[in-house]
């Protein structure tokens, strides 16, 4: 079942790639092959592979652990980049680490302490020592 779904998704991605490739236009042919051919071939391979997988799926055993925990980490990781600019690196990173620590069975207080420490340490390391400017957020720190 999983294989059939993966096959379908791959075939759709392949079709999308071919469709997108056909919209590429070069005003003059600087390259005898052009930008269209390679994505079209690769899209074709994906469609073919996807169909083979759909028609002859292998046995896939799925094991779920405590998936809500993984989901919490995943959601926090997805929200993180969106929060970086509005609230700054330190606050956003502390929040991400806090959620992650809770997901890893930490108690709230130690989780909060280690989250803030991690955020500050990484800020100092990256922004101050490695000169990679990080978003400061409203507090300007």
């Amino acid at each position, binding site marked *: 079942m999983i294989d059939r779904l*993966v096959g379908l998704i*791959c075939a759709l*991605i*392949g079709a999308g*790639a071919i469709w*997108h*490739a056909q919209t*590429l*236009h*070069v005003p003059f042919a*600087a*390259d005898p*092959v*052009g*930008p269209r051919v*390679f*994505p079209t071939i*690769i*899209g074709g*391979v*994906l469609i073919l*592979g*996807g169909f*083979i*997988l759909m028609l002859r799926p*292998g046995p896939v055993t799925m*094991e*779920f*652990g*405590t*998936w809500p*925990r*993984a989901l*919490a*980490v*995943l959601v926090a*990781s997805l929200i993180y980049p969106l929060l970086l600019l509005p609230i700054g690196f330190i606050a956003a990173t502390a929040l991400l*680490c806090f959620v*992650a*620590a809770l*997901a*890893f*069975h*930490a108690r709230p207080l130690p989780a909060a302490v*280690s989250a803030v420490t*991690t955020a500050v340490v990484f800020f100092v390391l990256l922004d101050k*020592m*490695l*000169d*990679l400017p990080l978003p400061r957020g409203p507090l300007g720190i």
Partner: protein
Amino acid sequence: MDAFAALLTGFQVALTPLNLTVAFAGVALGTAIGALPGIGPINAVALLLPLCFALKLPPETALILLAGLYYGSGYGGRISSILLNIPGDPGLVMTTLDGYPLAKSGRGAAALAISGIGSFVGGTSAVILMTFLAVPLTRLALSFGPADYVALMVLSFALLGTMSEGKAVKTWIAVALGLLLAMVGIDGGTGVERFTFGSLELLGGIDFTSLTIGLFAVAEILFLAEGMISGVVSRTGNGARLTFREIVYCIPAMLRATGLGFFLGVLPGTGASVASAMAYTAEKRISDKGTFGKGDMRGLAAPETADNAAQTGSMVPMLALGIPGSGTTAVMLGAFMMYSITPGPLLFTQRPEGAWGLIASMYIGNLMLPVLNLPLGGLFARLLTGSTPSRTRLSYC
């Protein structure tokens, strides 16, 4: 023989106090990183890259550090695989098959010893092969045109497909998806934007380092959060120590695994994970009498040797052709770019001190590793058997 002379100049570079220290730091850090599940060499190299630049390390020193980290991780990984049944990265799955049963039967110390010897044999023989093959390979590379590079990549992909037994279709799908991701950005030939969907950030393409961290590190974190990785801790055990006869018994397996591992490492696209899997299956076909998977020494020595031989082997095409032989060497290519060094055929003529210094440092590093691992093996084993939360938090950072 000019390889010897060149190697001697390389040793002059590698034996300076700074480079010796850095090589030691690299292999020590690599062992630690290999021993802790969840970090893996690819993430570690990516993390250390900006640090090398910020510390203003000279290019050859930075490369010695990153390479030390890479092949050092091959030594460390076996500890958690054998004692905890937790493979730290995909290349170590095969090590658990016979390593963990050995540890469970009380022969953990012997298993650590034979896998350490295997790592040493694989790593050192691969460096020797590299010394003599790198320059002839660059001569060959000079006559390589675009068509030849394409043919080489197609050969690697095809071999990858045949090696993943019964899963050739999935391998081809993965290859196609990877190529599709690599196409994002401005087409080099015509300057047309492909798959950017109007996004400015995607114009330059998807950065390989970011992609691998997302793929490997995030997946590992989610896996850990789900609690899917759990090992029953086994002690190093007080069973019989490794005997000389057992070492001799494993030598043919190690030699076969070295050749196979090095060859697969040199091929672009096939790294340590394919090599160790191939070495295990090959060894099983040759010498299994029903003992493989239940704690056969050869079943442990073969994948562990191939793993280390492949790691070193994958550096050959990176240095000689500018094509990374594995994921980690692809990240290391980024280090070359940062120092505006172009790896490839001209590297050995334009920057011989860098290229040969790196190779010479790998001889030294491979000697340091067993010395470092014998006393520290117990320490890492104790660190690993500590509580799970501390370990996972460490991996998360």
